[in-house]
């Protein structure tokens, strides 16, 4: 038994199954992160405002802090650059595959994984710094939502790296037998990867700058 349109496009919808599937999955992911962003707004709006020049305000955990004083903006900038570049290399990996250039494809795919790992390392350094200062999720609602959102985003990165690594190390066989299908896999992994990147593009200003 074979499922129709698993690889080829259905003419009237212009999609194959996997591509429609990943778009639907991403739609639900939008709702997941959307709910967290909404919660962020809700919590922040209902928290007492930070008053400049009132030292006690800094001590009250219920007060929403000035975020850029709490978090390391420079590290996050670096991470933003890493992720944007990883999206570029992801596209390149797919394009090289389409050009039938396996070696270059592997190079770019490897770069994508490398950049993602670099992102995780920086994130770990950030987390470590916070923990050593005694800033845990329970410290204040700002930290709670910060850890929840970046943590969930981090899990998405880990998931993405796992898939990318699988394709990197075990992709050759499918590429040899079913190149179309393999290219499709790279493409939908790429869609997911861009989404994870995009989430960060929103997380960065919301958590670090505003």
């Amino acid at each position, binding site marked *: 038994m074979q*499922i129709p349109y698993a690889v080829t496009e259905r003419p009237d919808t212009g999609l194959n199954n996997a591509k429609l599937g990943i778009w639907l999955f991403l739609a639900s992911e939008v*709702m997941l992160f*959307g709910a967290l962003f909404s919660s962020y707004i809700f919590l922040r709006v209902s928290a007492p405002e930070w008053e400049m020049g009132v030292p006690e305000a800094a001590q009250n955990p*219920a007060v929403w802090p000035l975020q850029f004083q709490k978090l390391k903006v420079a590290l996050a900038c670096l991470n933003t650059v890493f992720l944007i570049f990883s999206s570029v290399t992801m596209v390149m990996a797919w394009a090289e595959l389409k050009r039938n250039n396996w070696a270059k494809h592997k190079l770019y795919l490897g770069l994508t994984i490398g950049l993602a790992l670099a992102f995780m390392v920086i994130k770990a350094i950030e987390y470590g710094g916070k923990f050593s200062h005694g800033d845990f999720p329970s410290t204040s609602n700002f930290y709670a939502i910060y850890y929840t959102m970046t943590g969930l985003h981090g899990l998405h990165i880990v998931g993405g790296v796992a898939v990318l690594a699988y394709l990197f190390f075990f992709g050759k066989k499918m590429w040899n037998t079913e190149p179309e299908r393999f290219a499709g896999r790279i493409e939908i992994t790429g869609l997911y990867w861009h989404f994870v990147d995009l989430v960060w593009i929103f997380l960065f200003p919301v958590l670090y700058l505003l």
Partner: protein
Amino acid sequence: MSSTEGGAHAHHDDHHHPVDGFMRKYVFSVDHKWIGIQYGMTALIFLLFGFGLMMIMRWSMAYPGVEVPWVGQWLWPDTGGAMPSEAYNQFGAMHGTIMVFLGVVPLAVGAFGNYVVPLQVGAPDMAFPKLNMASFWCYLPGGVIMLASFFLPGGAAQSGWTSYPPLSVTIEATGQTFWLIGMVFLITSSLLGSVNTIVTIVQLRAPGLTWFRLPFFVWTQLVTAFLLLLAFPPLEAAGLMQLSDRVFDTNFFLPQGLMLNGDPLNNVGGGSALLYQHLFWFLAHPEVYVLILPAIGIVGEIIANNTRKPLYGYKTLIYASIFLGFMSFIVWAHHMFMTGMGTSISAFFQTTTMIISIPSVIILTALLLSLWGGSIRLTTPMLFALSFLPMFAIGGLTGLPLGLISSDIHLHDTYYVIGHFHYVVAPGTLMALFGGIYYWFPKMTGRKMSDVLGKLHFWGSFVTLNGVFMPMFIQGLGGVSRRLFDGGEAYAHAEPYLWLNKVMTHSAFLLGAFQVFFIINFFMSIFIGRKVDANPWKATTLEWTDAPSPPVGHGNFEHTPVVYRGPTEYSVPGHDKDFTPQSEPDPAPPEPEPEPEPAEEPAEAPAGAEASAGEEK
């Protein structure tokens, strides 16, 4: 499967193992039919269990402090067999959770959606068979985790199926944490399932099966899948935040200065219990349409088949369902009028709630008018479908006063609410689902269920369900609160209505007794039910006309069906039989062969449907 259809196929090595082992076939099956049956059986067991919990609770409400018959001594030896109030809270929270998330939705979506949708759209399977299996294997562990929580220190979840903080965060019971973990599994399962359903319907429709030739049931499943896809993630977010409140001591949902048993909690605070309610109901209102839409779809199929006449307003039904699905995302805060969220917000949600009642009434009216002038066959499934109409009407209409702020202030959290939504989900959805079981049982087994037992089951359930739920309106209007383990005995104002507790409890036990007919019928018919041919109901849709009962192996159809007409062409004038299968070409004048791939430009689909609608008149 003809390979021309999907174009040049890549070779799927995973589907070509020559021998299917036992595990592959029965446990980790990737065949949508078997997964559907797995879902169905599991869900029925959960339904029975959830109902069992409720029977014990009902006993406690009618006879508070009296030993529960049969099980009391064994469950609560220290109280002499009477149900303690904490146990009532656990059972109540688990009844709601089990019935909604482990019973009705898996039966309506997991079982019927899985089994029927691919067959009705002429597909060999779901679009992603392995995801389908994964979906079931997320659901089952989710359910097991929920059940296991009864045996944990402190017992199962106790803050209702809504799991409202602060109670759900401050409560000690480990079960409350397990509830959250279980929910994460169930949400994952429904995410996988809904992606699969949508892709199957969009991508795997047989040639000629345009959008407006899809059976109405498929449409309801499509809308349902979108609701599950988009509404569950916010609850997942809320669940994760609540989990973090419980496990990492965050304060997402805990305000500052909270008191617990008279003592200050000394928490950091800054959180908001309202935030949780918003996130919860953002899921849970669409969820009630997830509970009802598949049932409406089933009723539509059964009614068309048993009136031998097309559904009245087929397209209107579809548009109403889509509109209903869309609106269901913007009515959620009608559950929160009493929280003091502000009059303008309340007014907004009151308005949207009134608007959403319009498509519901349209659907109900169209189904009712479908009976007009039909030659009705009172088969067992038809009885269930017919009873759905007035029951859903009662459930729906009693909802209006709850959507209006001024009356909701009086009715909120009373038994009136319990009566209202149970009319929708129990005499409504459950009866429709039973109808669906009687209707598609021959497809799944090749045998019919007994009509005598079926009718006994129907009349018994119909009468006793009303005996359980009708008095709730009276109690609720009298001001009796929900979630009272003594049924209201402690309250003077409940005094005049206490006798109704006994009526309801005895009805519930009788209701349980009538389910025995169903259980016997079900298992007996699998083995000795009357054997039937492929299409015993003389239906028009593909699952009956193009596949034997039960459909063969993995792949469903010998040849990919080709569809020539709408889904409910019954009693077409000039035809020799009173049903015209979707896959039957018009004999004369010979129609031009439809293109193997239906063009799907918007202009094209309605044209195809208009042609078929024209024939219906």
